[in-house]
């Protein structure tokens, strides 16, 4: 043992060895998200893109009601908390007054596709030049497990305790496909953050969307199909398997609309 050189922490913790880092665009506040939840990863890659593009002084975010209502505690950029469903209207107000700044919303499925459907569709239809991050985990997380507009057929929630019966509760709303029909919409893509490769693709999607916003191409939506271990009543690993086995077959990943000629 005596001939083995003992390494000090300072020798190991050097830039060249760094496998993981926290961007300066995230605050030091510990996140309140449940273990295994995809929000933390989605926050991080979005903020990595903001840091890499060097736009942290030129971007304003809007986080409405839902699990991510406290996003302003974590994202180290100017932020507004919005009423439930109204993020796209709030973002419109900001962007119309500051067309040269970047504006994004970060919304859940209940927020964007139920109570805020009108605000979302009309912002998209006006071609508001904003990025909408749409977190789809098929359930209401913050209020602890009620049925969402995106809950899968047959999926159990606290308000569909015998499984979602589409005959009486309606079908899951594929709002990304719906929005892609509108001429004001430049870019719609569906990604996930439950596997490393998908995290990379999500990051690329954010970068593309913000680049399109810079070029004034119109409304961009990045949907992230993700998990909710607590309210799905699964372990993090089980919930990631559910994303692969059940969510993604219903909500297939990939680009739904890309800007013409791009």
């Amino acid at each position, binding site marked *: 043992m005596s001939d083995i050189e003992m390494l000090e922490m300072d020798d190991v913790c050097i830039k060249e060895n760094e496998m993981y880092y926290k961007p300066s665009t995230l605050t030091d506040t510990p996140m309140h998200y449940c273990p295994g939840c995809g929000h933390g990863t989605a926050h991080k890659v979005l903020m990595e893109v903001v840091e890499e593009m060097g736009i942290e*002084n030129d971007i304003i975010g809007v986080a409405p009601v839902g699990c991510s209502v406290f996003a302003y505690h974590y994202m180290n950029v100017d932020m507004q908390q919005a*009423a439930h469903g109204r993020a796209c209207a709030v973002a*419109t*107000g900001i962007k*119309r007054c500051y067309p040269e700044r970047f504006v994004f919303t970060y919304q859940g499925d209940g927020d964007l596709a139920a109570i805020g459907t*009108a605000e979302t569709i009309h912002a998209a239809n006006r071609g508001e030049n904003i990025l909408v991050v749409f977190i789809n985990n098929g359930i209401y997380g913050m209020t602890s497990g009620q049925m969402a507009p995106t809950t899968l057929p047959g999926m159990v929630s606290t308000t569909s305790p015998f499984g979602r019966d589409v005959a009486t509760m309606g079908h899951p709303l594929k709002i990304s496909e719906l929005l892609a029909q509108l001429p004001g919409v430049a870019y719609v893509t569906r990604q996930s953050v439950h596997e490393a490769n998908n995290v990379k693709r999500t990051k690329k999607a954010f970068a593309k969307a913000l680049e399109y916003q810079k070029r004034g191409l119109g409304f961009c939506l990045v949907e992230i199909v993700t998990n909710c271990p607590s309210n799905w009543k699964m372990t993090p690993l089980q919930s990631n398997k559910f994303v692969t086995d059940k969510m993604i077959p219903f909500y297939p990943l990939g680009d739904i609309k890309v800007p013409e000629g791009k």
Partner: protein
Amino acid sequence: MGEIKLMKGNEALSEAMIRAGCDAYFGYPITPQSEVLEYLAIHAHARTGMVVLQAESEVAAINMIYGAAGAGKRVMTTSSSPGMSLMQEGISYIAGAELPCLLANVVRGGPGLGTIQPSQADYFQSVKGGGHGDYKLIVLAPSTVQEMVDFVKLGFELAEKYRNPAMILTDGAIGQMMEKVELFDQMPRKTEYPDWATNGKPKGKERRYITSLHIQPELMEEINVRLQAKYAVMEEEEVLCQTHYVDDAEYLFTGFGLGARICLKAAEMARENGYKVGVVRPITLFPFPKKVYSELADKVKGILDVEMNAGQMVEDVRLSVNGKTPVEFYGRMGGIIASPEEIYDKFISTFIKGEK
């Protein structure tokens, strides 16, 4: 002397908005205030570069106001009663997040879809909160088209001074009628923004955020205490009230906005008939001129409160008078405007003949 014009109330308000250097207007059409968006659509952007956007609903419009106000801009929206009801959620958020903005409610008769004729039935909604939680708007009640102009400037000033939403509470008659107005000169648009405005994190400084969410009850109470202290300062410093013929008055007529104007005519009729009647007209409905009523109540034999509703401001008059003198009420509802003769007759029957 400013430019003199003959203008409709809604158009005068819109012209004042442009001249006050307003940065953005977000609104949705509703009778009897649709001229506002129509006037702005023609004139605003070309003259000052002001943003004018027709929203998909009043719900969206008020949230666009929230966003733009939160980013430090001088912003305004207008609506009429049913539309203003839809905005109440957003107004509560704006008050909670302490954002300055100016609202105008061109009130029509209710409840429900009601009528498109003028009314004052939204007093409670405007003055007592309207949305959820303990908050107050600064409420200005114009009684002339000239005041539709003047109160836009004043409303923006008060809203920005207190970081609080202000409202012009007017009605379909003042919105639609034409009168001579003197316009103030064009003011410059803002070029500097307050430190709290979320318009992009300044280099080398902390990020800002706009929120009305404070999950810790101790902090939420602290913020409520601060809001109430702010409202108390308004009650001390911002009360506006007009009085006419009160020095020798034995009786008072009182009302706000258009109702006050009719009260003045009725008081003049009473004086012609030998009755010493004065008029009290609150201009700010919040903060309410409690002291004016309290002091005059010591001197008069009775007060007749006249409103275009079922009796709303009369509750504040009675609280201010605190039983020192009788306060009676006369109101017309559903879009009917009382005539001076009706008010005079009500005064004679109630206070002179003592009929109930």
